[in-house]
Every structure is written in C-alpha cells, then in structure tokens.
C-alpha cells in the first residue's frame, strides 16, 4: 500500500497536481509515519509554495534531506537563524552539509543575507567546486564581487568533473535510487515477506552473475538515475534556485564515493558499455520495480533465475528501449519478464523522478537496504543494457529533456567519448557567459560587451543575454543602445521580467513616457506580483513628477521582495525628490543591507549628505560608490563636486580630468571643472573650458550664464550682457531667470558678491 501511495504522490507531483499529491501524501504519512514519508509530504508542500507547512512538518528531523528541506522552508519564511542551524548545526562543527552543492549554495545565501560575506563566498565556491554547473552560485559570487575569472571556474577541471558525474551514473543514480529504494524498501517490507524473499533471491541471483559487478552497476545505476532524476527535478521545480541547483547537488557526493568501483564494473557486464546507459535505466528502475518485484516473486523464483540469462541477454545489448521514458521496452529476449520489469521501471522512473524532486539525499544516510538495492541494481543493469541500444538514447533524451544542459551530456554519455566534448562545450558556454557577467558586475562594461559578442548567435539572441547587454550599455550611460538591446530582449522572451526594472529606468532617462507606460502596463499584466513590474510603474509616475504615487509603487515592490535591492534604491530616490531625507537615508541603507555593492545607493546617500551640507559624509559615500564602479564618469564628477565643496580643489580637479577622459560624451565634468576654476579665480582657464563646452553642447543655458558671470567679474559688460541674454533665451526655470536678470541689473552697478553665485 505504501508503495502505491508513494507512486501516486510521485505521479501527481510529476504532473504538477499538488493538491492531489498533498492529500494522498497525508494519507501515506498517517498510515506509514516515517521520516522519508514526511520528507515527501514536506516536498509536496514546498512545491505548492506552502513553506510554512513544510517547516512545521520537518522541524527537528535530522536526516540530511530533511535538514535541507527544513532549511529551505526556513529560508523562504525568512527565518535565517534556524535555516543556518539546520544546515550547519552548532554542536556538530564537522557535520557534512546535506545535499552537497545545493546545500552549500543555500548556506551561502544565508550567510550573504546575514552579512557574513566571507563565509558566503566560501560556501558558494564550495558549491561550484562540487558542481561546476551551479551557475547560481557563480552569479552570487559575481554580485558579491568575489568571483574568480570564469576560465578558472568553468575550466577543464570542471568539465572533467561533469563528465565523471554523468559517466559514473552508477553512484549518483544509485544514491538517488537509494532514497526511493529506501522508501520502497520500507513499503516492500510492509508488504510482508515479499521483498525480503526477493532480496535473498536477488542476492543469490546477483551472486550468480558477477558479484563484483553488482555493486559497481548498482552504483552506476544509482548515479545515472540520480543525474537523471536531477534533471527531472529541474523541471519540477517551481521554487527558487536553491532547489534547482539541487539537481546538480544531487549527483556529486554519492558519485564520488562510487566512482572508483563503478567505472570499471559496469563496463564489464555490459557489452557496449556505457555505464551511462544506466543513467536512463536507473531512473526508471527504482520503485516500481520494487512493487513489481513483489508480484514477480510470487510468480516465480524462476523469474529470478531467469533473469540471469535474461540479464545477460540484456547486457549484451539487446536493444531494449529505455524503459525510462517510454514504454517501449522492446527487449529482445525474455521480453515478457523484462517488460514487466520495464513496465515497472517506467513507473518507478516516474516515481523516481518525483522522488528526486524531493532532492532527496537521504540516500546518503540510508543506503542500507541491500535487498532493494540489489533489485534495483538488477533492473538498472538490465535497463542499462537496454539503453545501450539505440532506443535508449531517445529514452535518455526524453528523461533528460527537462534539463537542457543534461541532454547533451547524457546523449554524449551514450558514447563514452562524446561526453567529454559535451561537457567541454557546456563549459565553453558557461565560461563566456560567466566572464561576461563577472565583468559587468565589476562595471567593466565595454569588456563585458565584447565577451558577450563571442557567444554564438543562438545564445546571444536570448532574453537573458540581451538583458545583460542592455544592462552593460545602461552602465555606460549609452541609453539609446540600452533601449535597443532591451527591446530585443523583450522580443526574444516577452514573458521574462528579469532586467525589466533596469529597462524602465533607461526609458525614464530617455524621457520616453509613452514607451515607459506601455512597458509598465505590459509587465503588470504579465505578473502583478513581480517587483520589477511595480518598479516600472513607479518609474512611470516619477517621470511625470508624481513622486508620491511613484513612492507608493516602489514600496509595493519592496513588499513583494524585500531582497530586491533596486526597489529600495528607487524608494530612496523618491524620498529625496519629496525632500524627505531621513526616510531616503533609511531606504538607501536598506538597499545596501541587501547588496553592499549597489553603487546607486552609495551615490544616493552621497547626494543626500551633499544637500544637507554634511560634506565629509558626502565625500565618503561618493568615494565608496567610486570604488565599486571606478568607470562611471558621473560618480567621478560628483566625487569632484564633493571635494570642491570641501575646498580640496586640487584633488577635485584631478578627478574631473579623469571623469572627462572616462566618458567623452559627458559634458558635466567639464562644466564642473570650469566652476571649480572660477572659484579658484582662474577665469581665463575657465573660459577656455566653457568655450570648448559651448562648441560641444551649444544650447545649455547654464554654460552661458556662467560665462556671463565671468565676463561680469572682468567688467566686460557687453560680453556679459550678450551671454546673459543667450542664457535667458534658452528658457531656464524661474529661479535662474530671476538670478540672471538681477545679475544684468547689477551690471551697471559696482561689482559685489552676489548671493546667487
């Protein structure tokens, strides 16, 4: 009964029928309370986004998988201390982190959000070394500013690592199977004598065939299955990245344990080899085989004795279809029995997938059930042999198709040597993407753009890459190019919201209110609960100078995801526009709590202190922003302004020169330089600069106004008059009009220090 219920749950999860899964699972737990079943129930709740339920169920459990799921629920409920305690118990400093790479990743996130940057970095690096495909960990490292070069991380060693993972399926899938198997073992036992009977028979059977191979294959199968399961996991996961990374996390640890014995073993019994083929088969193998075993046992001990020769037939590569995905168990010999097996295995594979969804690594603790293992082993081996045939690749592909990356790898696995090229292709891709992302996080945007251009067209024209390109242009203050890149990104993936908050800011800068309101409307209609949509809406109102409504929208965005730094920063900007500096400071500081390298918030704080005339603070904050983004001419310009008001004019001028060089298109550093020169009474140099600036930007009122004031100081009244007139023609706002007109009036009055200047 337990097995049936478990299968049903797995099946429902596989089909995304969460309510059904939860209901059946609750019956399962009521009938057979065991930690594995509770894990399954918690997993169902997590799928259904009810992390509080999972939290209560898993509280206090000690199995590795339970601890991982518990930590995940705590993390989602924002109970970081408990999450950390679960993953890394205080009284067991040497305990292994559950779920390998995924566990490290989750722990890294916890450390990041509790301000322990070094530990976070350490764990993310661990996660990557265990599983080089954990892009999310690399991303976090880039955001924290601690990423190594992509070539180092996604290098050849990493490629080898992946190959091993997918080659030695044995360990991984075995381990994956373990949990299933464990559960099935439990349920099998509940059946009564069946499983137990089967086990000894199986054992003997095994022994009949190459005992040595058994453990190897078993592991292989497990490994394979786990990796497959992993991929399926990905498809099942709706929950945040730590879960996804599980996939990768699943494979490695068990894998490594079993690598040695596995690799040689599988090759021996199986003709064509590839233990990899076991991958596919293993996935399907586990549970269901279990149930079928029970029935089969009843049918015959003969079944088992038959399985020997059948197995060898299968082993010789009879070309059965991979039972994994398809029911095509076209096995040559012993078809009927095998089909039963495979039918079982197919179901079990589904169950397996569902189980893997749980990211269960309980196998680590519970690889105990010999009997079950053997059974699985048997099946998996047979499966693997079958998979060696051509149909298996398709099976593999099907099971794998849920995970794009894995597919090429698995397909390659079919062919031992191909796995190497597959892994290295993936590494190439990740290397380029990683390098590009790292450079753009360090604000070396031009280099990042060059790196992204190296991507093949099909990858470049995807939403994510185009968004990154847009982001790079945005940081370069090239808003037109950014607009173009982001609009392409929208075309490539119209449903994707990542980076759209930045797109809305680009449109804000370009003052394109039509496009911006259209974007905001579209985003809200796509997803009302995404922080990016409300950021876009807020930008729309801010552009129309309705700062109160904009602020409300940004606050909504913050409510939706308090860990979205940009929403806090935008709130800060609106508070400043409303002249509510205290709340502005609070908002900027919240943003910095989430992401210390968010230079916009440092800049915002600098601006507030500049307005409040706390010049030392202002200079400090601008300098922090400058350290994070040393390529931004705008930040350099403001640092210069802060130094100028602190009367450190020499340093100010140095920075201004740097700013002028950094971005030729930015007129402000030149203007500020002129301003500083005026205050230093170096009027001629100032005029030179302003003349140059005038050529570049002919219609800027403030340039003429400043020139007018300089001429006025020199008593060159006509020139002053001319320039003031030109300044007025360019329609400055009322305050400037007043200032300029009064300056004109005073032209004929002996020169005194004017307040406006």
């Amino acid at each position, binding site marked *: 009964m337990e097995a049936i219920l478990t299968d049903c749950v797995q099946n429902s999860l596989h089909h995304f029928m969460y309510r059904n899964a939860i209901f059946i699972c609750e019956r399962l737990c009521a009938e057979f309370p065991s930690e594995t079943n509770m894990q399954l129930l918690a997993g169902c709740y997590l799928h259904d986004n009810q992390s509080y339920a999972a939290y209560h169920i898993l509280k206090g459990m000690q199995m590795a998988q339970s601890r991982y799921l518990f930590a995940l629920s705590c993390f989602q409920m924002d109970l970081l201390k408990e999450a950390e305690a679960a993953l890394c118990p205080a009284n067991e400093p040497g305990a292994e982190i559950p779920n390998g790479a995924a566990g490290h990743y989750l722990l890294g996130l916890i450390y990041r959000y509790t301000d322990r940057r070094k530990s976070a970095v350490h764990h993310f690096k661990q996660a990557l070394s265990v599983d080089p495909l954990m892009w999310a960990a690399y991303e976090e490292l880039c955001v924290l500013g601690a990423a190594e070069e992509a070539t180092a991380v996604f290098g050849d060693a990493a490629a080898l690592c992946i190959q091993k993972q997918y080659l030695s399926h044995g360990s991984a899938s075995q381990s994956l199977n373990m949990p299933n198997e464990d559960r099935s073992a439990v349920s099998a036992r509940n059946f009564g004598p069946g499983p137990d009977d089967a086990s000894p028979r199986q054992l003997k059977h095994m022994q009949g065939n190459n005992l040595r191979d058994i453990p190897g294959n078993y592991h292989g199968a497990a490994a394979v299955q786990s990796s497959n399961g992993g991929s399926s996991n990905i498809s099942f996961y709706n929950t945040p990245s730590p879960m996804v990374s599980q996939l990768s996390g699943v494979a490695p640890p068990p894998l490594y344990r079993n690598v040695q014995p596995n690799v040689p073993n599988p090759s021996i019994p199986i003709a064509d080899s590839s233990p990899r083929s076991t991958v596919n088969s293993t996935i399907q193998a586990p549970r269901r085989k279990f149930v079928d075993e029970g029935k089969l046992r009843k049918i015959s001990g003969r079944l088992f004795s038959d399985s020997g020769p059948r197995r060898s037939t299968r082993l010789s590569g009879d070309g059965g279809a991979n039972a994994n995905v398809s029911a095509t168990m076209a096995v040559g010999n012993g078809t009927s029995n095998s089909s039963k097996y495979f039918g079982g295995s197919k179901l079990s594979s589904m169950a397996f997938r569902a189980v893997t969804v749980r990211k269960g690594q309980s196998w680590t603790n519970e690889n105990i059930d010999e009997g079950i293992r053997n059974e699985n082993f048997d099946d998996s081996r047979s499966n693997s042999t079958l998979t060696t045939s051509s149909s298996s690749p398709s099976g593999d592909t099907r099971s794998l198709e849920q995970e794009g990356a894995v597919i090429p790898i698995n397909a390659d696995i079919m062919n031992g040597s191909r796995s190497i090229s597959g892994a290295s292709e993936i590494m190439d891709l990740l290397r380029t993407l990683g390098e590009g992302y790292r450079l753009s996080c360090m604000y070396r945007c031009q280099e990042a753009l060059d790196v992204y251009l190296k991507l093949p067209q099909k990858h470049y024209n995807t939403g994510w890459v185009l968004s990154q390109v847009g982001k790079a242009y945005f940081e370069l203050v090239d808003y037109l190019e950014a607009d173009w890149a982001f609009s392409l990104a929208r075309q490539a993936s119209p449903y994707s919201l990542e980076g759209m908050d930045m797109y809305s800011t680009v449109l804000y800068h370009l003052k394109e209110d039509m496009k911006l309101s259209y974007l905001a409307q579209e985003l809200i209609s796509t997803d009302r609960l995404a922080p990016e949509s409300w950021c876009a809406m807020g930008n729309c109102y801010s552009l129309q100078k309705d700062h109160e409504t904009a602020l409300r929208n940004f606050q909504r965005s913050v409510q939706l995801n308090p860990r979205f730094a940009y929403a806090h920063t935008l709130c800060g900007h609106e508070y400043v526009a409303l002249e509510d500096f205290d709340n502005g400071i609070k908002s900027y500081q919240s943003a910095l709590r989430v992401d210390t390298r968010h230079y916009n918030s440092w800049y915002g704080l600098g601006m507030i202190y500049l307005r409040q005339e706390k010049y030392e603070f202002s200079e400090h904050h601008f300098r922090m922003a400058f350290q994070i983004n040393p390529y931004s001419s705008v930040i350099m310009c403001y640092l210069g302004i802060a130094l100028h008001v602190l009367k450190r004019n020499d340093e100010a001028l140095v920075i201004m020169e740097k700013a002028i060089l950094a971005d030729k298109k930015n007129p402000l550093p030149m203007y500020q330089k002129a301003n500083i020169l005026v205050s230093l009474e170096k009027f001629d140099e100032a005029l030179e600069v302003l003349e140059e600036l005038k050529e570049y930007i002919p219609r800027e*009122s*403030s340039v003429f106004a400043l020139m007018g004031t300089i001429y006025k100081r020199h008593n060159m009244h006509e020139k002053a008059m001319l320039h003031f007139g030109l300044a007025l023609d360019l329609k400055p706002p009322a305050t400037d009009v007043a200032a300029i*007109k009064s300056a004109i009036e005073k032209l004929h009055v002996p020169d005194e220090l004017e307040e406006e200047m």
Partner: protein
Amino acid sequence: MATESSEGEEEGKITSGNHVLIVEDDLRELGKKAAWSVSSCKPGNGVGSLRDDNLETYWQSDGAQPHLVNIQFQKKVKLQLVVLYVDFKLDESYTPSKISIRSGDGFHNLKEIKTMELIKPSGWVYVSLSGNDPRETFVNTFMLQIAVLSNHLNGRDTHVRQIKLYGPRPNPIPHQPFHFTSREFITYSCVR
C-alpha cells in the same frame, strides 16, 4: 468658467476663479512643510479642512474680523503663488471679498505684501506674490499670513475651502549656480 480676471497694481480685482487647478511645472506645493493655524474656527470646520484636498469641506471662522490664516515655516522658503478655493454660489455671504497677504519673520513683524479684491469668485483663485522687478519674483520668508478683511454681503464669518502655496523647485543638483536645461546635461546629471 468666466473670462475676465483683471488685476490692478497694488490692489487686484478678481471676478472669477478657475475650475481646474493648473500650475506651472517648475513650481511645487510647499504647504506640507508649514505649520498652519487660524484665528478662530467653528467646531468641525477647523484648519484641517483647508488642507484636506477636499472641496466639500471648508474652514468657517467664528470671531471678529479680520480672520487670519497663519502659515509658519521652520526655514525661510521662497514663495511665489497662493491659490485659494472659494465659491460664491455655495457660500454667498461667507465668501471672502477683501484679502490681504502679509509676510514676515513672525507675528511681530508682518508686513503687507499684497491685497486682492474678489468679486463673486467661484473656483480656484490665483494670487501671485511676485513683484514687477525680476529680483522680486519670490518672497523669501519664515511666515505668511492670509487675512480675510471682509466678506461678500457684509457677512461676519468666512468660508474658505482650500488653500495651496507654491514656490520654485530647488535645483536637483545641489551646489550649482544654475539649473541645467539641455537634455545632455540632465541625462548625465544623475544616477538612478
């Protein structure tokens, strides 16, 4: 609504009011920064009704004329425009007819800067505080006092439905002598 709105030099006459409140873009409302008080009020129709953005509610005075609305700031602010919402059709004898605007540092040194005569106004009434001189575009002050000297039809008490104060926007970039006008300057002038 109506068409004419004539203003004299010292004393202005306004014959109508606008239905819609339209203010230039480079002005912003400053009332939120001030402490508002009135010389007298009827319970339920207090000073809050002057600032609640609701044209149905009004302030009703309850004492001797002149009725005063005092607006005090913590720092000196530049003010350019005062806008009142009054309605003869609804308030008749409660509608103010002569208004005087005074400014100063506090109650002790208020000086009159503007007077206005309203003739059956109905809607938003704009009272500019600027002088003729360009140097006098703004009134830079700690306190403003709006005094209702007399009402239509010789009414004793007055109804005012809403008052708004406007002044120039500050330069978005601090410590600059002038505002930026061109797109290039504005684009590069801030990080968002």
